[in-house]
Every structure is written in structure tokens, then in C-alpha cells.
């Protein structure tokens, strides 16, 4: 059913490397199978929820993103996998990706030229900004600083993220993030978006301290604590009883 509905992206060349696939399978059985099942078919709990989802058809790009950013393997079950230092090295991640790609057709790891920012001109940056404002800011904030989602989930900040992982996240839709397929948001659109996010990081902070670019949350807190706090301090100074002398009046 899934294979019919989810259009197959080109079969992955990684999956064709049999030695790499079998190396990946070894790693998978040790590190991943306890949650995702021995054949990556997923494990359903007694409450009919997913212990670990099926990885058939998620593609090499999803593995490269989840393992490469340290989100997988999970440190503990929770509402959301967190970015942390990766556990597997580059070669092991490639092997795992090859194994999962061999299970069913899915998005491949994008080639470096797809997200290379060479030759991105101002016009492309502006275009990337328009795509960013339309598709990304609802969750990731106008400055890519991230934001809160219901139930303790969150959209992570986009600053300091490797362009490859941004590309893969758009392509595969990790966790609650929707998918932005190459057919709709083309590789060029994605490159422009990534270039725009990079330009946000380089740009000066015209308005003074950005306070994390969290908008009214941090700015409001600053105004309440520092602004109103110092006004209260002055009021206390004005109203405080000043020191009195015991020497008695001159008059």
C-alpha cells in the first residue's frame, strides 16, 4: 500500500553495494533492531502504538539525517528525538543508510551539488527567503530560531545546521515536520532556502541585541524584568525614608 502511494524516488545506488548493505545489516541488528524490529518492519506495542516505526521505504536520506545528527539511536523514549553528538561514524552511517535503502525505494542522500551555495546570487536569496517565509517560518520562526509545538514537541533551531541535513529534513520530513518533496519544492528551491537561512546567520543584528530572535517571548521578558524592574527600583528610591540625624534641628 505504502509503495503504491508514496512515489518511488530513484532507486538508491548505495543499496546496490552488497558489501555495504550486509555491513549495515550487522550494525542494524546490534543498534537498531531492538526498537525497529529485526527486518526494520517496526514494532507495534500492545496498546497499538509504535515502539519503533517501520523503516521500509524511508530511504537513505532519512537514515543519514537521523543518525548523522545524532537523533538516532534515541537516548530514551520521549516526545521527540533530540539533536546530539552522533554515535556512528560517517562510514557506519553510510552502511546503515545502505541497508535501509535496500529494504524499499525511498529518497537517496542528496549529492553535494544540490545544496552547494556556489553561484547563489541575490535574486536566488530573495526567492529562497520567499519560500522560507511561506513554508518554514510557521514552525521554525522568522529567524530560524526554532519554536514550540504542542505537547512538549518543538521545531529545532536552524542555525549551525549542515546544509545537507537541512536538505534531507525537507526531503524526508523527520518526526512532526511535513515532507517537502523535490517534485514540489525543487532542488533549486531547496538550495535557495538553505542559502537564505545561511545569510540570516551572517547578517548583522540591526535592531540591537536579538535576544535569541524569539520575538515577544524574550523581548517581553526583558521589558518586564529589566524595564519595569528598574522603574520599580527608582520608585523605591524616591519613596524610601532617608537617613535622619540625631543632632536635632538648626531652626
Amino acid at each position, binding site marked *: 500500500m*505504502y509503495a503504491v*502511494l*508514496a*512515489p518511488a524516488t530513484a532507486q538508491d545506488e548505495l543499496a546496490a553495494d552488497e558489501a555495504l548493505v550486509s555491513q549495515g545489516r550487522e550494525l542494524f541488528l546490534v543498534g537498531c533492531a531492538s526498537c525497529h524490529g529485526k527486518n526494520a518492519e517496526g514494532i507495534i506495542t500492545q496498546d497499538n502504538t509504535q515502539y519503533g516505526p517501520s523503516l521500509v521505504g524511508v530511504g537513505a536520506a532519512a537514515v543519514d539525517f537521523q543518525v548523522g545528527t545524532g537523533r538516532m539511536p534515541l537516548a530514551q523514549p520521549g516526545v521527540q528525538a533530540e539533536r546530539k553528538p552522533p554515535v556512528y561514524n560517517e562510514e557506519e552511517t553510510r552502511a546503515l543508510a545502505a541497508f535501509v535503502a535496500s529494504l524499499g525505494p525511498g529518497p537517496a542522500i542528496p549529492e553535494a551539488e544540490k545544496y552547494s551555495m556556489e553561484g547563489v546570487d541575490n535574486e536566488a536569496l530573495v*526567492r529562497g527567503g*520567499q*519560500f522560507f517565509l*511561506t*513554508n518554514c517560518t*510557521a*514552525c521554525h520562526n522568522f529567524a530560524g530560531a526554532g519554536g514550540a*509545538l*504542542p505537547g512538549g*514537541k518543538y521545531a529545532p533551531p536552524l542555525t549551525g545546521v549542515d546544509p545537507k541535513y537541512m536538505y534531507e529534513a525537507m526531503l524526508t*520530513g523527520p*518526526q*512532526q*515536520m*511535513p*515532507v*517537502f*518533496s523535490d*517534485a*514540489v*519544492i*525543487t532542488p533549486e*528551491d531547496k538550495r535557495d532556502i538553505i542559502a537564505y537561512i545561511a545569510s540570516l546567520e551572517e547578517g*548583522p*543584528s*540591526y535592531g*540591537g*541585541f536579538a535576544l535569541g530572535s524569539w520575538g515577544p517571548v524574550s523581548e517581553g521578558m526583558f521589558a518586564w524584568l529589566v524595564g519595569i524592574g528598574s522603574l520599580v527600583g*527608582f520608585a523605591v*528610591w*524616591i519613596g524610601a525614608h*532617608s*537617613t*535622619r*540625624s*540625631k*543632632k*536635632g*534641628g*538648626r531652626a
Partner: protein
Amino acid sequence: MVDPHLPVPGDPIDNPGLPHHEPRPTDVDPAAEKRAERQVAAMFGLSAICALLFCVAYFAFDIGEETDTFMGLGASNLFLGLSLGFALLLIGMGAIQWARKLMRDHEIVEMRHPVASSEPDRTEALAALTQGTADSGIARRPLIRNSLLGAVAMLGLPAVVALRDLGPLPGDALERTVWRKGMRIVNDVAGTPIKPDQVEIGQLINAEPAVFFATDEEGEPVIEGHELQAEKAKAAVILVRMQPEDINPFPARENWGVDGILCYSKICTHVGCPISLYEQQTHHVLCPCHQSTFDLANNARVLFGPAARPLPQLPISVDDEGYLIAQSGFEEPVGPSFWERGE
């Protein structure tokens, strides 16, 4: 002389009077007084220097250039703000110090007095009014009085006529959007039409009606300027795809989607913010303004927040070339509710 602040004999609650006045060090020690005087004068003097520094900074630093010279802040911004800020702050601080240390601080009591004017004043004012009425003869000449009232009332008309220019009544503009039967659904910003097999499970597409990107035979946009903005504010949609078995459509809406692809208005039904904070695993879409949450798998039912009705759904199908199109316009007004909106 009887001191009004002292207890009145027979008052049920004793007037405690004022506490004994204690002098401040500056009242009794000439050295302390001199020191306080110098402090206040120093603050006022520093304020004047800051005002001068403001002028120096204004000419010394380029506005707009070098936006991250000091701690990531522009030199111009930083020094203009600091100098003007301290110029104002030091005047205030000097005034406070002056009042606390040097101004006379003997407590005084001001008794309350009735607010009304005195009786002779009131009598005199009433007499003047009566005299004026009699002298002008306004009571005796109803023709003048009535024509004056008419003239003043008629002055309201120019105001009403001028205010009409604020715009025509919205008419049925709130009830309709540019969506028509057969209009293609295109990707926002790019304007490209969308085929169902380009949309993956879990995908979100921020989409628009194709007419916003259409041009006439002379290459001019069909809709542009203010009209484009007004129509965009109503016609924007989100397109999502989920597993078909996850969808629980109303009986009449079973064929409103295409293979698990559903199309909803992007305009929140609470106060009209555009929504695209979509969680692909829960199929919930959340409005950033007031946290209204809609379940797109269940006809955009309201799960949480102040929105009172589901997001309107746009029925979709595919055209001969395989692109996604609208089956019709929206069946109900999109966006916030309004009084005349029919149920």
C-alpha cells in the same frame, strides 16, 4: 490658635497627628549639605555633557555603516542611545537627589474642601444665564430657534457623506473566493501546478489558486495590486497528504480528496491568521496567533483554542492532464465568522 491636626475632643477615633519631625544629616551638617549640593549639580552637569556627546556621536559615526562595531551593535546606534538616554536619566536622578537631600521635607497636611463653587458664585452664574436668555429673546422667537437647530443638525450631513468614502459595504465579498470549478491548485511562490504523484505521505504544500499566477494575452497579471492581496487573504490553502485509512470524512465529503490528499483553507476561522504549522504524524494544524488546533484527518474539527468552526475544506480532483484542481469553490465563507454569515 487651634491646630487642625491635633485631636478633636469627642472624636470617636483619636487623630494620631504627625510623627515627630527628625532632621536629615543635610539639614544639620553644612558639610553634608555642600556634598549633596555638589552631587546634584554634578548630575545636571553630566547630563549636559551627555547631550553634547549625543551631538558629537551624531556627526562622528556614520548611520547605517558598520552595524556591528561594538558587541555586535552599531557605533552610531549605541552611542546615540547611550548619550541621549543618560542625558535624560541624569536630569531625573538629579531632581530626585535634590528633593531627597536638600528640599524642605517638613510634613504638611492639606485639608479637603467641598468641590462645588460657593453659593454667591452659583447664584450669580444662574442670574447671568437667565438674563442672557431673556435678552436674546430665544424663547420668544421660535422661528430663529428652530432654524438654528435645523442648521446645526444639517451639519452632520457633510460628515456622513464624506465618511461614505471609507469604502463600499463588503457586499458578498466575504462569501466568495476566486476558487472556481476546474481551477488548478499551484504551489505558492513558484506557481507550479501539482500532480498527485508529486505529493508524498506527510507532505505539506502551501498553495494558491492558479489565477494568481495567470497572465492575460498582453502578459499582464490577471489579478494584481490591492485586489491580489485582498483575494490572496481569502483564497490561500494548504494541501496535505496522509494515509487514506487515517481520514474520517463526513458522509458528503468522501470524494473531496484525491488518494489521501486533502485541501483546506489556510485562513484560521477565529480571526483570520494564515496557518501552516502542521504536524504530519498527528495531522494537526495549529494557529500561531491563539493556538487554535484543527484535526485535518477529521474534517478539520477544532481540537483546542478559540476557533468556533472547522477550517473550510476545498473539494479537489484531477483534470485531464493529471493536475490537481478544485471541484468547486468553497461551500462556506472562509476566515473569521461574521454576523451575516449563514449557517
